[in-house]
């Protein structure tokens, strides 16, 4: 029996069985070997660690890649937006053990520090910010566990005392929030023309400075908007959105009229549900979908430009008011423009790497 080199052992059937407790015969065979050769213990234990960790690592990678495939096929729905990273019971148990270990070590070291210096160490709050540039999207979790998906060209700044008494973030641009429920610490999103106060919910805020409109769409829960200009509060219910004309007059319209799609006024509106795949249009971007419903070409182009990080110019003003209804997922910009050409003919050419000119 083996004085074999390590690599041979790592591929040896009986040795792998022993490491993974697979087969009684192999287990006792290797235990006997260790009894007879105690000096081998250290080497064998190290190799056993490798085998076990390999087993764990390969299964984890395999599972994750399949899980990602599955996730892509499951449509985003109301209740699914709350998907924080899930954990199996087993994994959370072992994580709890790890956490307990870390907490234990921290306690001991804090105690040591306390006795050594006579001072208690404090965790100072740190202000944090997140940015995206054109063509970029990011998903991250805030210290309170809330999930944020940040769309292109957007900026989020966490207040210095975030998660102490309340949770205040400043947003410019567009973001989707799934807020962890905590009634004792209200979550407040500040934008340049409204504040949004929530207790635990999922919603989308679009507030690009310079855009004609800002809007807040509620997917689940309940939020309260404070409009800065009017000093007015509005309550939003699920699947409603509040559209604010930053340039025009601030009329609040609670009734839902179809004409609003064409001539948007400030006020409450239902969110758009795409007929094709029942997706909520306002948050489709978080799933990498681009959906346009009766959208004027000019604003459509603005969205494309942000999305793909390319400057797009409309040379012929006559094109600006054509309206499009379309949805795209994971298509490149050329394919998108080519598809749009079928609706109304136009031409486009790449001026350089970062600019596209559209003409008749």
């Amino acid at each position, binding site marked *: 029996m083996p004085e074999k080199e390590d690599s041979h052992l790592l591929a040896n059937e009986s040795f792998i069985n022993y490491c*993974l407790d697979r087969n009684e015969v192999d287990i006792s065979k290797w235990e006997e070997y260790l009894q007879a050769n105690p000096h081998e213990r250290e080497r064998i234990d190290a190799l056993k660690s*490798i085998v076990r960790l390999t087993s764990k690592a390969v299964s984890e990678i395999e599972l994750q890649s399949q899980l990602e495939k*599955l996730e892509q096929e*499951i449509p985003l729905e109301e209740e*699914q937006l*709350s998907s*924080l990273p899930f954990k199996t*019971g*087993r994994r959370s148990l072992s994580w709890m053990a790890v956490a307990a270990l870390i907490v234990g070590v921290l306690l001991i070291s804090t105690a040591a520090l306390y006795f050594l210096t006579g001072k208690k160490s404090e965790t100072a709050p740190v202000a944090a910010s997140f940015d995206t540039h054109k063509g970029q999207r990011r998903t991250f979790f805030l210290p309170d566990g809330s999930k944020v998906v940040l769309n292109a060209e957007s900026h989020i700044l966490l207040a210095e005392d975030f998660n102490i008494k309340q949770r205040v973030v400043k947003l410019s641009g567009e973001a989707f929030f799934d807020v962890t429920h905590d009634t004792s610490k209200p979550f407040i999103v500040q934008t340049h023309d409204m504040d949004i106060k929530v207790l635990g919910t999922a919603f989308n805020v679009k507030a690009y400075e310079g855009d004609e409109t800002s809007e807040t769409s509620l997917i689940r829960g309940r939020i309260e908007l404070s409009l800065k200009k009017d000093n007015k509060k509005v309550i939003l219910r699920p699947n409603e959105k509040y559209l604010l004309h930053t340039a025009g007059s601030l009329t609040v319209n609670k009734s839902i009229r179809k004409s609003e799609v064409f001539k948007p006024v400030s006020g409450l509106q239902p969110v758009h549900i795409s007929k094709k795949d029942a997706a909520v249009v306002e948050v489709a971007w978080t799933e990498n979908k681009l959906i346009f419903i009766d959208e004027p070409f000019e604003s459509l182009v603005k969205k494309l430009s942000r999305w793909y990080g390319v400057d797009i110019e409309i040379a012929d003003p006559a094109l600006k008011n054509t309206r499009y209804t379309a949805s795209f997922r994971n298509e490149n910009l050329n394919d998108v423009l080519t598809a749009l050409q079928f609706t109304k003919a136009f031409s486009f050419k790449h001026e350089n790497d970062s600019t596209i000119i559209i003409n008749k």
Partner: protein
Amino acid sequence: MSEKAIINYCWNDFVNNESRNGYYSVYQHYYAYLLYVGIKKGFDAETVKDTVNDIFLYFWEKRFQLKHIQNHHNYILTYFIRSLCKNNKDKTVLPVEMDDSDWFSAPPCDEQLLHDEHDKVLYDLISKQIKQLTPKQRLLIYQKFYLGFSYDEISRFNHISISTVYNTVYAAMDKLRRLLPRDTVITLISVMVIAFAIFFAIR
């Protein structure tokens, strides 16, 4: 709580509350097991993987209608095997009976390991290395080290010679071994303990 009780709880959470977390936990629990069963029945690994995802997609769509199911384990297994056979009629299904001794159980590596810092360092190195492997190599490593098939079985299931299987596994493990010099593995434990202590002392 036993693993079985946890999965029962997750399944109930999924069918009663449409819980996404419950659903994914059930998936994670059953993934390797169904793969094991499917491959043992003679279907190729890719087909089996696709079928597993298909049936879970179906479960998600039918989540409002699953409350009546008494024994979710039998339901999942039966539905899985039926789907495999229905969609692959041309295949001859190997007559594999799953008796108790043949029961797939995950290798017992999760609990004891990864509590030590040094294990985590090793684990990260190994994960990185495994990501470098080609899909084919990874498939064989998965079947050998996680599903626990013998070299003989792997060679039959994947229609490749036994020496190819062995050589692939050997090459991968040899690379891993060279990546992790023995001294490193052994001394990592003591080094990590010291580094850990220093880290917290400085703080």
